[in-house]
């Protein structure tokens, strides 16, 4: 998800070193200027490669860590139908992570290397997943607002200049619409329920609204994207995407029958957009820097999964090796 990743650096990406070459550079620039695609084995400037590795892997990490807050509710879903839907959704997020790791690997990094950066805390992932999922309505609100914000971010990436990334994004965007709609549907069902259920929905909206609009990253004036924009990676600015999201969401909140927790939110006829209140950037940076409510838990869960799976990875490799030997002997 998450243009945030464009605005927030993590450690240096590693990859094969390529000699800078003016003739190649000119060809690359012409391709980009013409709106063309760069493919895996094409020459590209080192900075372009590094930026992509960083962005695609942060995006992949976000999908993988993003499975945790929702996974938390799979065993407690209120019906078999909702459990099946949530399982499918969480499985999709795992798939998204895998499409993206595969795209990043075409740039000359290994999967384990990327994973190591996540597990060591060196790589960033979207701040939104460091908030807890406290009640069942949170699952609906995540689908509606968090996946909704992700979709806003992701649609322009379908046209980004790096072929493998753009194709992965097309695949992801096709699947995201289900995520948002199932969330909204879940909330509609709760809003038709008891007063307590309606309160749960409002409570979840109150907690997720601001973190959701923070997902678009810092204001344009505080984030420098000239290169990613020139390279055709980032096509729409953080603030423009955020505005689009707010404009689209107000009506949805109204239909649902909830209020958005912002007293400054109101239609501005002159701008043709909704105005909204100031974002608490201290909270944002605090969460990004590792001090959100769930940063420690999220990383611990990923590390545990990796370590607990080590014997399976080793055994499968060993099994494959033995079988290859047996087949060779039999031949």
């Amino acid at each position, binding site marked *: 998800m998450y243009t945030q990743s464009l605005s927030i650096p993590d450690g240096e990406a590693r990859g094969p070193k390529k000699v800078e070459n003016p003739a190649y550079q000119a060809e690359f620039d012409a391709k980009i200027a013409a709106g063309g695609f760069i493919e895996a084995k094409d020459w590209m400037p080192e900075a372009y490669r590094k930026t992509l590795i960083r962005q695609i892997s942060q995006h992949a990490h976000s999908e993988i860590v993003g499975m945790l807050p929702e996974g938390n509710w799979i065993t407690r879903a209120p019906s078999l139908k909702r459990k099946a839907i949530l399982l499918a959704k969480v499985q999709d997020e795992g798939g998204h992570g*895998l*499409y993206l790791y595969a795209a990043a690997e075409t740039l000359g990094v290994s999967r384990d290397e990327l994973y190591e950066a996540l597990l060591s805390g060196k790589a960033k992932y979207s701040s939104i997943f460091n908030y807890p999922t406290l009640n069942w309505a949170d699952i609906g609100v995540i689908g509606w607002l968090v996946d909704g914000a992700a979709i806003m971010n992701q649609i322009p990436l379908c046209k980004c200049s790096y072929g493998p990334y753009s194709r992965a994004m097309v695949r992801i965007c096709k699947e995201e619409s289900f995520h948002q709609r199932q969330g909204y549907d879940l909330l509609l069902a709760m809003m038709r329920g008891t007063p307590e259920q309606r309160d749960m929905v409002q409570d979840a909206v109150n907690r997720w609204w601001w973190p959701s609009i923070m997902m678009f990253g810092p204001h344009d004036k505080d984030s420098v994207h000239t290169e990613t924009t020139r390279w055709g990676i980032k096509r729409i600015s953080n603030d423009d995407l955020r505005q689009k999201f707010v404009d689209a969401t107000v009506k949805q909140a109204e239909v649902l029958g909830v209020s958005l927790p912002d007293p400054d939110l109101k239609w501005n006829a002159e701008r043709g957009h909704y105005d909204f209140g100031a974002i608490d950037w201290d909270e944002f940076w605090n969460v990004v820097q590792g001090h959100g409510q769930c940063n420690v838990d999220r990383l611990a869960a990923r590390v545990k999964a990796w370590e607990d799976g080590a014997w399976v990875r080793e055994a499968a490799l060993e099994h494959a090796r033995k079988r290859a030997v047996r087949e060779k002997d039999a031949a």
Partner: protein
Amino acid sequence: MERKEWPLWEVFVRSRNGLDHKHCGSVHAPDAKLALQVARDVYTRRQEGVSIWVVKASDIVASDPDAKPELFDPAEDKIYRHPTFYTLPEEVDHM
């Protein structure tokens, strides 16, 4: 963290009979059997395919991107290979 990575496999999916297998991404798996299994889970969760090929990425031989001019430019000036090169009388031009 030890680095014994499962090998990389490229995945090709035929979306329905009558169409070619098309490259759709890659997976890591210890062997061909598991590569197919993983590819099924990762790339065909919504009936996107009726058949999957997996090929070890290290077995793929690709043309050199630097050789693009030698390989692909010579066809550029052979416009007589295209039907539009030939101007025929209007009455028969739909052939």
